């Protein structure tokens, strides 16, 4: 079957999608967006976390057909997404801006040449990335929490990230990174 939906602000179509296929598979194998990681395939690890109509979900547990006509944001689109959000109404979505937005993100494979979102920069600055496999899911989850809750307590952060497993860092650097992003977000306002 064919599935049409919006990914990171761009309309996308995937063809020959098997009816039992997950959104994660479509993103990685059909749309060339391998940022969302495939690990447990049962919603335990959070490494495939994306936003579906703004809501963080495990893309491995969303059937591809369920996203027809809906909006998905993956880690590849996080920088643009954060930028749009911080601009608020002042940016608007004029045609020129929309065109400019679409032209960005030149290389989804390596992410080179792409601007980073504040949460991505904070992960780098705090040393919260080791092997990096869990990082995309954590970034999407953490970014959504900071959007909802700009001044999170440590308990808030732990709860928001409780569905994302990391086997390298021991989570402390990740906590540091989210606190850092929250603090920077506070300064910017």
């Amino acid at each position: 079957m064919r599935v049409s939906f919006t990914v990171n602000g761009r309309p996308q179509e995937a063809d020959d999608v098997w009816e039992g296929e997950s959104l994660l598979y479509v993103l990685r194998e059909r749309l060339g967006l391998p940022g969302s990681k495939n690990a447990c395939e049962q919603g335990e690890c959070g490494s495939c976390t994306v936003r579906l109509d703004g809501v963080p979900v495990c893309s491995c547990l969303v059937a591809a057909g369920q996203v027809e006509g809906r909006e998905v944001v993956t880690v590849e689109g996080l920088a643009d997404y954060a930028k749009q959000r911080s601009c608020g109404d002042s940016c608007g979505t004029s045609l020129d801006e929309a065109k400019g937005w679409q032209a960005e993100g030149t290389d989804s494979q390596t992410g080179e040449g792409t601007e980073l979102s504040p949460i991505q920069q904070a992960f780098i600055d705090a040393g919260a990335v080791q092997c990096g496999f869990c990082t995309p899911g954590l970034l999407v989850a953490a970014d959504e929490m900071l959007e909802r809750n700009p001044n999170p307590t440590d308990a808030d952060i732990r709860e928001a990230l409780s569905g994302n497993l990391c086997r390298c860092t021991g989570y402390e650097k990740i906590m540091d990174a989210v606190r850092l992003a929250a603090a920077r977000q506070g300064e910017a306002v």
Partner: protein
Amino acid sequence: MDFLRPASWEEALAAKAEHPTAVPIAGGTDVMVEINFDHRRPEYLMDLNRIGDLSEWEVGEDSVRLGASVPYSQIMESLRAELPGLALASHTVASPQIRNRGGVGGNLGTASPAGDAHPALLAAGAEVEAESVRGTRLIPIDEFYQGVKRNALAPDELIRAVHIKKADGPQQFSKVGTRNAMVIAVCAFGLALHPQTRTVRTGIGSAAPTPIRARAAEEFLNAALEEGGFWDNGKIITPSVARQFADLCSAACNPIDDVRGTASYRRHAVGVMARRTLTWTWESYRGTAARTEGVA
């Protein structure tokens, strides 16, 4: 496999009547795991996400009509006052990502003895609104669970909503697992005080082939509370009464040994949770305790 995409509830019922083997998918947190792991290859997968009514709820005089697809995160956020036991149970479901997708309809459809919503539904009192092209019926929650992962639905029926009694007293939920998130219950316990009828109801999860109530324990406690005038005098429940209640809850279990825990551990833990949840709710009823949050 065929992907059915009904745009309305009526269309969904018609599709289910035409294809009784169709597997409904809403949050997908159970169904997709089975498909991803090749444990299930349904002939038809029927997406219910397009049916907006399923994600809505209505607060009535005595009960809440909770749409089958209302996600757990919404229950936690919006129905804590009306359905405190279910809200606590919802908070222990997996992770934020899962709670954003999964709902009580799926828990009932899967009918796993480990489903987190079941003890809360049993304790509060609930009816499952099942519908087919033949009509609608309300299935009492006590009659809904029929066996391990088996429920009372007919092949052409879908779960439209759950009617859950609004709390008329304190409710608690407790769950045993290895951490606070991403845990399938080793066992779980729900308890609701119903001061209006002067009764106590219970729900036990993961300690029998189906979610169950500890009826003998309820009857014992109802009689003991009545006899001692506890509902009126608001005294602390006698330790021996609490112990006997806990023992009867343990005795109601019919657990198995599995990877998550042994049968004897489950029996023991259910007794501990029964005593604790009784103490917490009773303290709350007496109006003395500050404790409002359950322990997962």
